[in-house]
């Protein structure tokens, strides 16, 4: 086994015993990136030198800990990749957008502070759809990330770079953000584990906002145990975030292992299967893999029953009113005045970027204030890509006088109904399972001209975000794909949803399933 193939927990054991060094591990990852990433395109930025320095520091600290027997921080010396939506102090953070092409945050997101103090080593920033708007990374303003299982296909999105990096062993773990499935959907399409925590469980401070009432940071990992470890490291109340919830952070690894030694680890667990999650037009192989997974859960002692989430069909229109509405305001700050890209006044003069960071001033009086407004308009016109502009327009429309009640307000009411669907279902069951996506990874370019088809890729991952509940996607098999010869198929994700703050139960079911199967150990041929 190569060092870069290690999980977080396996690497931790080896670091603890001194069997490997963080420097070895970090070098192995950097070499892997050098070799593989020109084909996968997972990373937007790699900070090799800084990572190697951090690894040397970590090794020095490990030596100390081994000598005096003290406990090292949970992730000391473990390499990580971070989605470019998350602010990293001193490291360029673009959100996949041209409008932030040169933005270097002077602060860390709270999750970065937590991971840094846990000792993890930042390798680089991963590609994504611009401002997390998309399901394929095709909306990145830089390049499209490839699915390591088939380089002609998308890795999912928006956290596609993070998922591809984990799937291709270009990092030990990664963080993504999930607004409507952006962690779970790419995890499902790349045979990795992706967890969306309860809204309020993980701080959003320093996470570039797409839709504030929906955004959550979550880990993308090689197995469920790593997801539990990373969640434990990033969860917790943050006084800098008003919607962060002050509930204690349990030991997720211990919670995950409840019943693990038992013959029927899922005894007493009631699993709900929503009839609305097996729809017409769904890829048959996906439905089959998920049905098989449900049988595995039954064999592990779980009782299953059908449940209904009657407003599931409304999740998509509801999401595409609320998320763009919030985004239209969240993205208003990008105007070229304070930071980031600033369009040249005379766009015809060429494409050279003039940046607000250079400290030049906006000329304002001579030609009236027209120049100032023209520059702001050109900055946004140039700096944002088509999908971002589409959503800003959608959101602006939904909030406009005369339309607010019919669109935004109505959507908020339906959101409440969707939440009530889950509340009712969770009166009968402990977790709900279903597919993460209706199909396996699609071809690059296949849906790029059809926004609605693209939106449907997230059809099963929107309702949980609207309800604010936790959900995980774990590998549950491969669906045969006629276009592929010699490959058994493409990865399928099983989605497990829980009550708000019931990540322990979600992780327990995920872990029991993973323990009984070996899908997660399959690796793409690269």
């Amino acid at each position, binding site marked *: 086994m190569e060092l870069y193939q290690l999980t977080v927990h396996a690497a931790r054991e080896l670091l603890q015993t001194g069997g490997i060094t963080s420097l070895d591990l970090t070098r192995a990852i950097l070499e892997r990136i050098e070799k593989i990433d020109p084909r996968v395109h997972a990373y937007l930025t790699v900070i090799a030198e800084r990572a190697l320095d951090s690894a040397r520091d970590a090794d020095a600290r490990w030596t100390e800990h081994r000598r005096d027997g003290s406990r090292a921080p949970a992730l000391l010396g473990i390499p990580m990749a971070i989605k470019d939506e*998350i*602010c990293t102090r001193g490291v360029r*953070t673009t*959100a996949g957008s041209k409008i*932030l092409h040169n*933005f270097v*945050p*002077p*602060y860390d*997101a709270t999750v970065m502070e937590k991971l840094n103090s846990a000792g993890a080593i930042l390798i680089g920033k991963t590609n994504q759809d611009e401002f997390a708007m998309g399901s394929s990374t095709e909306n990145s303003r830089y390049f499209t990330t490839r699915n390591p299982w088939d380089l002609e296909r998308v890795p999912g999105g928006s956290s596609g770079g993070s998922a591809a990096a984990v799937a291709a062993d270009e990092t030990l773990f990664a963080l993504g953000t999930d607004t409507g499935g952006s962690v779970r959907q790419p995890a499902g399409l790349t045979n990795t584990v992706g967890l969306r925590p309860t809204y309020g469980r993980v701080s*959003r*401070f*320093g*996470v*570039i*906002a797409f*839709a*504030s*009432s929906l955004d959550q940071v979550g880990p993308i990992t090689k197995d469920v145990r790593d997801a539990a470890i990373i969640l434990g490291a990033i969860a917790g109340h943050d*006084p*800098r*975030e*008003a*919607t962060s919830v002050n509930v204690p952070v349990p030991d997720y690894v211990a919670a995950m292992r409840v019943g693990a030694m038992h013959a029927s680890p899922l005894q007493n667990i009631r699993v709900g299967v929503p009839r609305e999650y097996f729809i017409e037009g769904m890829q048959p192989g996906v439905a089959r893999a998920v049905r098989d997974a449900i049988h595995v859960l039954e064999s592990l002692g779980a009782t299953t029953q059908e449940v209904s989430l009657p407003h599931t069909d409304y999740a998509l229109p509801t999401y595409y009113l609320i998320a763009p*509405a*919030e985004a*239209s*305001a969240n*993205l*208003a*700050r*990008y*105007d070229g*005045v*304070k*930071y980031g890209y600033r369009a040249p006044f005379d766009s015809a003069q060429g494409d050279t970027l003039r940046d607000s960071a250079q400290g030049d*001033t*906006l*000329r*304002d*009086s*001579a030609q009236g*204030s027209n120049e*100032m407004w023209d520059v*702001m308009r050109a900055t946004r016109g140039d700096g944002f890509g088509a999908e971002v502009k589409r959503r800003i327009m959608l959101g*602006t429309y939904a*909030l*406009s*006088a005369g339309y*607010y009640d019919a669109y*935004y307000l109505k959507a908020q009411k339906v959101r409440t109904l969707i939440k009530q669907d889950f509340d009712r279902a969770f009166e009968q069951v402990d977790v709900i399972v279903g597919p993460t996506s209706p199909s396996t990874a699609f071809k690059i370019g296949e849906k790029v001209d059809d926004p609605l088809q693209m939106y449907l890729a997230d059809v099963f991952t929107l309702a949980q975000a609207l309800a604010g509940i936790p959900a995980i996607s774990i590998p549950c098999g491969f669906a045969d794909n006629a276009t592929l010869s010699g490959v058994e198929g493409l990865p399928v994700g099983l989605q497990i949803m829980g009550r708000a703050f019931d990540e322990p139960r979600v992780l327990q079911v995920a872990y029991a399933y993973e323990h009984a199967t070996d899908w997660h150990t399959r690796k793409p041929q690269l």
Partner: protein
Amino acid sequence: MEYEPVIGLEVHAQLLTQSKMFCACSADYAGAPPNTHLCPTCLGMPGALPVINQRAVEFTILTARAFNCEIPEFAKFDRKNYHYPDLMKGYQISQFDLPLSRNGFILIDDAGTIKKIGIRRVHLEEDTAKLFHDGNASRVDVNRSGVPLMEIVSEPEMHSVEEARLYSLKLRQILRYLGVCSGDMEKGAMRFEANISLRARGTTELSATRVEIKNLNSLRAMVHATEFEIARQTKILNAGGTVEQETMGWDEARNSTFTQRSKEEAHDYRYFPEPDLPRLEVSRAWVAEIEARLPELPDAKYDRLMRELGLSSYDAGVITAERDVAEYYDRAVDAGKARGVEAKTIANWVSGELFRLMKERNVEIGAVKIAPAQIPDLIALVNAGTISNNIAKNVFEEMFATGDDAKKIVQAKGLGQISNRAALVAIIEKIIADNPTQVAGYRAGKTALAQWFVGQVMKATRGQANPALVNELVADKLKSL
């Protein structure tokens, strides 16, 4: 036709909190170099988030209660969307449909007529950054961005510029009493927006169109702009025209309003609930706790001073104008009780000599060297006959300059009144002996000359003689001649 103006005011008051509305930056930016009070949140940096300043919420509830407002159990913040380079996030966090308070009123006294002016709501929002235009460049100073701003919205219930002025002054007085706003208009701590329409006098319908004048940065600007606008609308209506609904600015230099936006160009602010902030639950216990911090307000103080202490309306008015003065006075009255000094007499000294000297020397009440208890001490000396009222004024001036006790000054300068009969009789006898002409005149029936003799005695004693005693002794001596 005769028209009656209908005026509504929105007053923006910067709150005197230590930190800004949604971040930990200091809100006290006055005089600070540009762009030194800022952080990712008030700069609107990517990923930065707001956290509500609890103190600002309490200040708003306190103010709202002083304005007799209801405090709903729930409030929320909303985003008000518009683009401008001084608005860091591209939206302002404000309150739209669930403000912290609503339905209050204050009373104004317009030349003896008490009028109730409704307050529609008091809500909380954040200030914007400041733009500077320098040559052909615009520069942004972010220090002001995110400073807590309380918006006080009146009902359109003022019908003259004078009422609008009195309303504004009353607001300022209460805000300063509460200590929630400096009211310092020079520094932009209080800014105004006025809604103005006209209607035929005697009717009660509100006009369908109204003109809004924004960015009135002082009371003076508000008064002038309102006067100008009433005249402009009157002229239009008299000429048979109609007043267009529009938003105007005020050009201080030209002393005129100018159109900023017509009705067609009116902003659609696309308000929606701020998803970064949870809904505010305002428990009744919290409101009660805040209410307990309400000081005695100017109206109540004014009433008490007139009813219980017998002050004139004028004295009660000037003494309660500022809370610091009123409290200074209250402390002086308390100290006077033990010395048997009347509250009214103290009021005369405060509204007379003290105010005169403060104005003359440009001294604020907080910097006055005379301690409140020193005033009844001085009055007690007058009451005891130790010094005359006129001498007391000199002593007061000395106290104002040095902060010394009246007694100490009187002793040091030998200003004690001469009340020694024998000494005064000797002086009177000498004056009678030295002025035979006047004595003859008196004898011939010019009894008014008695006052001339009194004056001579006062002159001879450099004013220190007890005037009542001198009067008595002079009269006795002249009669016995």
